[in-house]
C-alpha cells in the first residue's frame, strides 16, 4: 500500500512540475526577450548561490568526516602515503577552490544583459603558456615526491624481514607462518585437498614445522614480508590501517613488505574504541562471498607475540600426522608433480 501511495505522490509531483513548467513557458513566450533576460539573471544568481554553498559545504563535510577517513596509519610506510595524500590534497585543494570559485563567479557576473555583446577574446598564447607551465611544475613535484615514496614502498625487503604467506580462496584467507626453522616449505597446487589447503609438500622438510593459524599476528616494529597468492580467482589483500593492498592471483605470486608500528592495544586507546581490531579484507571482487572474506589481524608486543606463537602447533602435527592424509603426503607422487617447476611459492 505504501508503495502505491509513494508512486501516486511522485506522479502528482511530476505532474505539478510539468504543469507549472508549461505555464511558465507560455508566459515567457509572451514576454519575449525580457523573460529570457530574467531567466539568465535567475540562473546566474543560482550559480553564485550554488558555488558558495558548494564550497562551504565541502569544507564543512570534509571537516565533519575527517575523523573517519584515512584512519590512523599503523605502519611505517602508511605515514609516507598519508604525507603524499596531504601534499596532493593541499595542491589540488587550492586549484579546486580557485577554479570552482572563478567558474561560479563568472557564471553569475556575466549572465546575459540587454544590448551587451560577449567580449571577443579568441586566444592569448601567453596565458596558454602560463597554464601549461604552472600545472606542469606542480605535477612534477607530485611525481617526484610520489615516486620517491613508491620506490621506498616497493623496494626490496630487508634481509631480516619475517615471511608470512597469505593465500586467498573462495571465500576465506589462508595464512602460513614458517616454523622455528624460519623457512616456508614448498607448496604445489596439485597437492591441495580438503585438509592441506595450500598444498604444502611435506616431503620438503621445511614444511613440516609450518604453522597455519586462523588469525594473523604481527610483532610490532618488526619488518614483515607478505607473500601473497591465490588458489582460484583474483583476490586482494586489503589492510586499510596498514595502507596495504596487493592482488592475490593464481600462478602469479606477489609480495608486500611493511613494518607494523602500533599494537592492537595501543590502537584501542588511540581510537578510543575498546572493540577496535585490525581486519584483513578482500579488495577485489571474487564472487558471492567477496564481502565476507575477513580474517582478524593482531599486532602484538614482543611478549604477547611469543605467548601466541608458543601456542601454535605445526600444521603437520595438528592436521596431517597419523591420518590418511599423512600416507597420501608421503606416497610416491607422479613424476609430473615432483618435477614441477615454479610451483614453489616461497622461492619468489
Amino acid at each position, binding site marked *: 500500500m505504501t508503495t502505491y501511495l509513494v508512486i501516486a505522490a511522485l506522479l502528482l509531483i511530476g505532474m505539478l*512540475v*510539468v504543469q507549472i*513548467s508549461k505555464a511558465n513557458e507560455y508566459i*515567457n513566450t509572451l514576454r519575449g526577450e525580457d523573460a529570457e533576460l530574467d531567466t539568465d539573471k535567475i540562473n546566474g544568481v543560482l*550559480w553564485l548561490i550554488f558555488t558558495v554553498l558548494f564550497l562551504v559545504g565541502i569544507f564543512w*563535510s570534509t571537516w565533519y*568526516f575527517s575523523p*573517519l*577517513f584515512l584512519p590512523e596509519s599503523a605502519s611505517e610506510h602508511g605515514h609516507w*602515503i598519508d604525507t603524499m595524500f596531504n601534499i*596532493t*590534497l593541499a595542491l*589540488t585543494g587550492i586549484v*579546486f577552490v580557485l*577554479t*570552482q570559485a*572563478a567558474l561560479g563567479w563568472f557564471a553569475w557576473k*556575466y549572465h*546575459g*544583459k540587454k544590448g551587451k*555583446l*560577449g*567580449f*571577443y*577574446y*579568441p*586566444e*592569448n598564447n601567453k*596565458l*596558454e603558456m602560463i597554464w*601549461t607551465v604552472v*600545472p606542469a611544475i606542480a605535477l612534477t613535484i*607530485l*611525481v617526484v615526491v610520489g*615516486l620517491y*615514496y*613508491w*620506490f621506498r614502498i*616497493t623496494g626490496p625487503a630487508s634481509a631480516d624481514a619475517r615471511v608470512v604467506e597469505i593465500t586467498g580462496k*573462495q571465500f576465506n584467507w589462508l595464512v602460513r607462518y614458517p616454523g622455528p626453522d624460519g623457512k616456508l616449505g614448498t607448496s604445489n*597446487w*596439485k597437492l*591441495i585437498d580438503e585438509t592441506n589447503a595450500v598444498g604444502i609438500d611435506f616431503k620438503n622438510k621445511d614444511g613440516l614445522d609450518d604453522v597455519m593459524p586462523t588469525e594473523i599476528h604481527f610483532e610490532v616494529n618488526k619488518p614483515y614480508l607478505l607473500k601473497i597468492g591465490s*588458489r*582460484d*580467482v*583474483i583476490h586482494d589483500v586489503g589492510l*586499510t590501517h596498514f595502507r596495504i*593492498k596487493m592482488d592475490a*592471483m593464481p*600462478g*602469479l605470486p606477489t609480495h608486500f613488505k611493511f613494518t607494523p608500528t602500533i599494537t592492537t592495544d595501543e590502537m584501542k586507546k588511540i581510537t578510543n574504541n575498546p572493540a577496535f581490531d585490525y*581486519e584483513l*579484507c578482500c*579488495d577485489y*571482487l571474487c564472487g*558471492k*562471498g567477496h*564481502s565476507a572474506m575477513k580474517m582478524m589481524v593482531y599486532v602484538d608486543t614482543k611478549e604477547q607475540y611469543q605467548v601466541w606463537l608458543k601456542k601454535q602447533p605445526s600444521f603437520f602435527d595438528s592436521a596431517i600426522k597419523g591420518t590418511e592424509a599423512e600416507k597420501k603426503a608421503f606416497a610416491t607422487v607422479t613424476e609430473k608433480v615432483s618435477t614441477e617447476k615454479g*610451483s614453489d611459492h616461497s622461492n619468489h
Partner: protein
Amino acid sequence: MDAKDLHHGHSEHHSGAVITDHVHYQDTEGVIRFEADHGHHDNDRNKKNFIHTYIFSTDHKMIGKQFLITGIIWAIIGGGLSNIFRMQLGFPDVPLHFIGTVFGDQWAPGGKMTPDFYNMLITMHGTILVFFVLTAGLSGTFANLLIPLQIGARDMASPVLNMLSYWFFFLAGAVMFTSFFVPSGAAGVSWVFYPPLSAIREAAVGSETGADLWLVSMALFIVSSLLGGLNYITTILNLRTKGMSMAKLPLTIWALLITAILGLLSFPVLLGAAILLIFDRSMGTSFYLDKIYMSGIGAMPHEGGNPILYQHLFWFLGHPEVYIVILPAFGIVSEVLAVNSRKPIFGYRAMILSMLAIAALAFFVWAHHMFVTGLNPFVGSVFVFLTLLIAIPSAIKVFNWITTIWKANIRYTPAMMFSVGFVSLFISGGLTGIFLGNSSIDIQLHDTYFIVAHFHIVMGVAAFFGMFAGVYHWFPKMYGRFMNRTIGFIHFWVTFVGSYCIFWPMHYQGMAGVPRRYYSHGAFESFNKFGALSEFITIAAIVVFLAQLLFVFNFLYSMYRGKKVTELNPWKSNTIEWTTPIHPGHGNWDGPLPEVHRGPYDYGKDGEDFIPQTVPMRPGETTHHG
C-alpha cells in the same frame, strides 16, 4: 549541382580513389533526388516506406536519433539497476519483492537480494552505462547527427555501413538484454571481466551463461563501434564542404574525429582479449589461467597462462575508452559554451592540441589501473609519470573553458547550464584523478569508493552532462521543436546538486578504505561506520534518477508538443547545421551545399553578435582560426 561541388573542399588534399568513391555515392544517393525534388520527394517517400525511413534508415540524422533513443532506454535500465543495488547498500532491510517478479525468485528470496544478484547488478550497470549509453548513446548520436551537418555533407561516406553500425549495436543490446532472463542470470563478474573469475564457469553464478552472452554482446558491440568509427573518420576527412578546412571545423567535429580514431585503435584489442577469454572458457586453453584449484572441482588442468595479460589487454582499450566517453562531451561543451557565451571559444588551437595530446597519451597510461597487481615498480613509475602528464592538457581545457565565459554575455539555456555544470564536474573529478594516478596514494585508494567517486564524477556524470547539453542544444535540429526550458532547468539543478550529493561523500568512504563491489559492509568494523551516509547517498541516487524521468518525459513530450522552431537559426549560431531547412530531408540542404569562409567561433567580433561560417571574410578582416 555537379560532382565538383562536393569535393571542392578537399580535392587538393586527397587521392583520386576517394573522389571516385564519392562520385559513386552521389550517383546512388544524391544527385537526382536532391536536385529535382527539394525535399518534397522525401515526404512522399516517408509515407510510402515507413521501414526505410524509420527502421532501416540510411539517413544519418535518423540513425543518430535511433542511437539516442536506444541510448535513453539503456540509460533508464542501467540507472535503474544502480537504484536497486543502492537500496541494498543504503537500506538492506527493505524487502524488494519486485526483484523476484521481474528477474526470478531465486535472486531475491523473501525480497532480500542475494550477493550473486548484487554482483550481476553492478556488472550490468557498468557495462550498460559505459558501452551502451556513454559510448554508443553519446558518440553514436552526436557523430551521426552532427558530422554531416556541421561539415556540410549530404550524409556519411557510407550510409549503409552507418545503418549496420546501429543494427549491430541493437543486436548487441538484444543479446545483453536477453542475458538478464537466462536461468543463471546476466554476467556478474564486474564490467572489467577479469579472469579467472570470468573464465571459470564454476567460479560464480554470474560466470555461467550470462558471461557467454556478455562476451558475444561485446563482440557485436565492437563491430558496431568499428563500423561507425571508420565511417566518421572517412566522412570528416573526405566530405567537408568547400572552404571547410580542418582549421575551420567546429570543436565538436574535432572531438568526434579524435574519439573515432581512439575507438578504431583500441576496440580491436578488447575484441582480441574477449576472444582469448572465450577460448579459455569454452575450449580448455590457458591464456589467462595457471595453477588453479577450485573448491568442488579440484586442481584444474590449466597451466602457463597469466591473469595479468587480460588486464593489460583490457585496459589498453579500457583507458582510451574513458576518453572515448569524455571527448565527445568536450566537443559539445566547447561548442555550447561558445554559442551561449556569445564569445569565441578561448584558444581554439590549444583546445585541438590538448585533445590530440590527451588522445595520444590515452594509449600510454593503461597500467595505472594495475598499480596493485604486483606490477614491476619501475613500470609502475613510468605510468605514474605519463598519467600525471595527461593532467596538463586537461588543465589547459579547463582554464580555456573558464576563460570562455569570462566577460561573456551568457544566455542560459538548459544546454548552457549543463555545459557550465560539466566544467565544474570535470574539475572536481579531474583533481581526484591526481591522487589516484600517483601509485603510492593509489595503494590506499585503489578499489575503494574513492575511485568510484572519481570516475563517476569525471566520466560518468560529466559525460552525461555533455550528452544532455547536446540533446537540449540540438533538439530543435532533430525534431524542429524546442524542449521545455523550465523543466530543463529543474532537471539540471536536481541532477547537478544531486550528483554531487551522491558521489562527493563516496570520497570519504574511500579514504577510510571502504572497498567497492561489496554486497554489504557489515562484516567489517572498519567499514561499517558509514550507515547514515550510505542512506543519504541512496536517497540522492533515487532523486536524481527520478529527475531523469522528468527529462525523458520532456524529451518525448517536446517531440510532439514542444514549441515549434520558427527560424532557421534559433541559437544565433555560426555553424552550418543551422543553414539547413528546419526539417532537413535526407541530403540535408535543399539547394547546393553551403560554402564556408571563416572559423566557427566569430562571436562578438567587430561589434557583431555573431558571424556565421558562411559569411565571406570582409576585406582586411583578420582571423584567429587559420
